[in-house]
């Protein structure tokens, strides 16, 4: 009876100190199906996959392959069982070629010399069979993210893996690349591969998955057929309540200029070119402006330049009428709040308790430090408790919980609480919903809109298309360090946005008339390509 399942995880329980990450979870992957694993952040998806991949051992429950119980003690065991994984952050050697990366670890040699020809032939055959176009001799550092992902997929196929795990694979792709990936996944299914697809994007589940298993807070909620379940039902299963999928907001009412950026140029740390080139725009009181773009097009460096983490090569920044081009981070932080892109690297001191992280931007103020330089611990505790309550930040031990021990979503909530609560006129929110679940995302979006309605300026930097389309009042698209387009989210489409993001289209910095012509040409070529 168990035979139809390629892999089964039965009644898996995995505990960590103070938390049950997986509580009696059952996941059954049929042969030749795309099975989505859906859950909030901290729902236990990663833990479950780590158990499957041999990174953790479950305390209870069994894993069965083809109906037979197996032990997976480390990733090598998983590999031997034909389980492969495309990690969210690719595990590729940057200075190696595609082919070298694919054979890494399973090289065939003769007298100690690499035998590449056989491998090349196999890779070629595989890429043709599944429609995975790659140049085997291109170096990883030179190819697009989409191609890097295809390399990762080929890596699994080269090892004859039958069970393929995709961990949030679409986060780094353009809309066009996402479509391609969906096609590839369908091809793989057609060839009899079984796919586990970890995601929190309901659209993608609807597009490719056959069945979906939902987890919530470590508990198994259910497994349902995708075809017979609406997106609203799935999100309700995931979050445990109704989620408003559309962001409610009134039209913006922009007033005075809060932030003015003129000709900003920022150097890159990776290469000798500038990462941000001659960027100019304004953000007004009472509006949300979003900088959209594919990851790695200068957004990170732009934020560093804006917040004072890196010096500008050229340009001028004016905040509330004051030139802050040369101001220190602390001076800027008096009027600017910053939700950083990387919460572990910048946003938190992970080894500090939550309460210390809550005052990270304010600890030096008289409210929290006495004149003699002693921390006012009682005040810090009380402040942290208030923010935790107001922003629903959950943790094992309240203010004294070490930040490292908190879930990603709650870490992010803590940062947002801290940044929103402090005095500011401008909120710079860099991927504020990164890695958050639908319910938490809704909360963050509401927060951003509330900020706007309270008369602050919000600059949102986002990679998520849904967020880009729904939250801001204006969209600026960044491509290779330049602002290539300004769009009105109410009038544009995801497809058009995608063309700007991919650099195929631009509508600023060009004379208006020629822009019209160029635009139509670009669209023509795009259409031809599609055909």
């Amino acid at each position, binding site marked *: 009876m168990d035979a139809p399942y390629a892999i089964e995880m039965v009644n898996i329980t995995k*505990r960590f*100190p*103070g*938390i*049950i990450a997986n509580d009696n979870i059952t996941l059954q992957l049929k042969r030749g199906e795309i099975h989505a694993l859906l859950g909030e952040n901290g729902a236990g998806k990663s833990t479950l996959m780590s158990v499957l991949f041999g990174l953790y051992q479950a*305390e209870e429950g069994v894993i069965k392959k083809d109906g037979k119980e197996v032990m997976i003690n480390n990733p090598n065991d998983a590999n031997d069982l034909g389980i492969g994984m495309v990690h969210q952050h690719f595990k590729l050697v940057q200075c190696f070629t595609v082919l070298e990366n694919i054979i890494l670890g399973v090289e065939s040699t003769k007298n100690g010399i690499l035998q590449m020809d056989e491998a090349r032939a196999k890779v070629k055959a595989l890429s043709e069979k599944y429609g995975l176009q790659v140049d085997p001799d291109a170096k990883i550092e030179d190819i697009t993210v989409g191609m890097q992902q295809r390399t990762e997929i080929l890596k699994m196929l080269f090892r004859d893996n039958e069970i393929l795990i995709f961990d949030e694979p679409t986060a780094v792709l353009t809309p066009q690349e996402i479509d391609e990936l969906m096609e590839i996944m369908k091809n793989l299914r057609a060839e009899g591969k079984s796919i586990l697809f970890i995601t929190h994007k309901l659209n993608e589940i609807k597009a490719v998955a056959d069945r979906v298993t*939902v987890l*919530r*807070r*470590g*508990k198994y*909620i*259910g*497994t*349902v057929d995708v075809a017979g379940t609406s997106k609203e*039902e*799935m999100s*309700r*299963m995931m979050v*445990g*309540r109704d989620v408003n999928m559309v962001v409610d907001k009134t039209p913006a009412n922009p007033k005075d200029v809060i932030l003015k950026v003129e000709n900003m140029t920022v150097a890159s740390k990776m290469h000798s070119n500038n990462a941000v080139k001659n960027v100019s725009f304004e953000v007004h009181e009472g509006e949300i402006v979003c900088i959209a773009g594919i990851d790695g097009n200068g957004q990170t460096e732009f934020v560093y330049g804006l*917040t004072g*983490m890196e010096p500008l090569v050229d340009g001028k920044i004016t905040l509330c009428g004051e030139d802050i081009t040369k101001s*220190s*981070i*602390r001076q800027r*932080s008096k009027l600017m709040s*910053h939700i*950083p892109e990387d919460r572990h*690297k*910048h*946003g*938190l*001191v*992970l*080894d*500090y308790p939550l309460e*210390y992280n809550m005052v*990270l*931007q304010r*600890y*030096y103020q008289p409210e929290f*430090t006495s004149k003699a*330089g*002693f*921390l006012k*611990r009682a005040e810090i505790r009380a402040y942290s408790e208030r923010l935790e309550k107001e922003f629903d930040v*959950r943790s*094992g*031990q309240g203010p004294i919980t070490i930040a490292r021990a908190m879930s990603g979503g709650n870490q992010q909530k803590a940062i947002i609480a801290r940044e929103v609560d402090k005095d500011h006129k401008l909120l710079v929110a860099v991927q504020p919903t990164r890695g958050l679940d639908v319910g938490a995302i809704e909360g963050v979006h509401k927060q951003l809109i509330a900020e706007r309605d309270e008369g602050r300026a919000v600059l949102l930097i986002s990679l998520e298309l849904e967020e880009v389309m729904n939250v801001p009042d204006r969209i600026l698209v960044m491509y290779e360090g330049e602002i290539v387009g300004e769009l009105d989210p109410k009038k544009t489409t995801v497809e058009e946005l995608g063309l700007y993001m991919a650099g195929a289209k631009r509508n600023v910095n060009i004379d208006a008339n020629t822009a019209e012509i160029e635009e139509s040409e670009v669209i023509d070529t795009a259409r031809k390509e599609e055909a």
Partner: protein
Amino acid sequence: MKEKKSLLKNPSFQAILTSLICIVLGLFIGFIVLLLINPAGAGEAIMTILLNFFTRASAAAQMKALGNTLAKTAPLLMCALSICFCYKVGLFNIGAPGQYEAGACIGLYAALAWHCNWVICLLLAAVAGAVVGAVSGALKAYRNVNEVISGIMLNWIMLYLTNMVLSGKKVKDPASPYTIKLASGNKGALIPSAGLNKLFANNTTVTIAIPLAILFAVLIWMILSKTKFGYELRATGFNKEAAKYAGMKEKQNIIITLAIGGALAGIGAAFLFLTGYQEWSTTQTSVPGMGFNGIAATFLGGLHPIGTIFASFFIQSITDGGALINKSVYPSQISDLISSIIIYLCGFVLFFKFAINNWISKKDKGGPNVNDVPVKDDAAKAEGGEK
């Protein structure tokens, strides 16, 4: 969290326990080495190391020996505090011996050549140590030179610089390689004992340096855990990038940290050489062990300023005890060998801590532990999805 927590999980208890395990293990391995060399005297020798001053015949002699151990504990504690302080800020101050040498150099030179009184000498020693520490700090902050590398190199540079400076006419005893005794050169530079010597059978090397060192330990603990300054320094140590993001001057903090570490080590040198316990040998060709033993004391003390007080005393005590081993039975190097084995094992504190935690988590597997994740939403609604 009202339920009874296992004592083993208490971090302070764990720190003390792991330190004790290290000590016992160190003594045990030391004992085995003694057995291998000469089984007959091993038991007596290990007891001598452990008991140190208690082996003396009379109560007065015991107190005098204890006084000697305490006198040397003060400088060791200062070096340990130097390393502990920097470690809390994420820096490994292996340059403490060099900062200690700088303190000895300027402290003694000020005492003998400039005839300064002890307070001035002490302050100058602190400044000298701070300057050497700041050099490592600046290299780290602005050029990302690892403080371990620059620290080790500065240890040697400062050793020979100190030898050179203290070989000067005004400071060196012409008849020996040592600097002039403070008792004859400049009595005012001796740290006062304020009557403490009376408690230790008139041991004149027992001075207010000992309570001062303990005071420094408390002060360092207060700074690190209670002040804004400590908050910034520790944040910088834990996560330099987050410190920068929060507008702290992370580069400056690194330099200040190593400068403070240097000052502590410099004061440590003053606490030894300004008590008249010992003179500087201008022909020495090895970096003084005081700074290195400070590393062991830091780890044995559970990386806590208060813990280092006890750890420093213990390490100094076994070092002194080692010197008392019967030299007719064992070669003369044995004392250093045994104490270094014990000190070496003190470095394993973190390893044992890790092992204990591993063991606890293994043991905890079966126990229920559900109270942390509040599932407060309405489960009823969700049941619609369960098929």
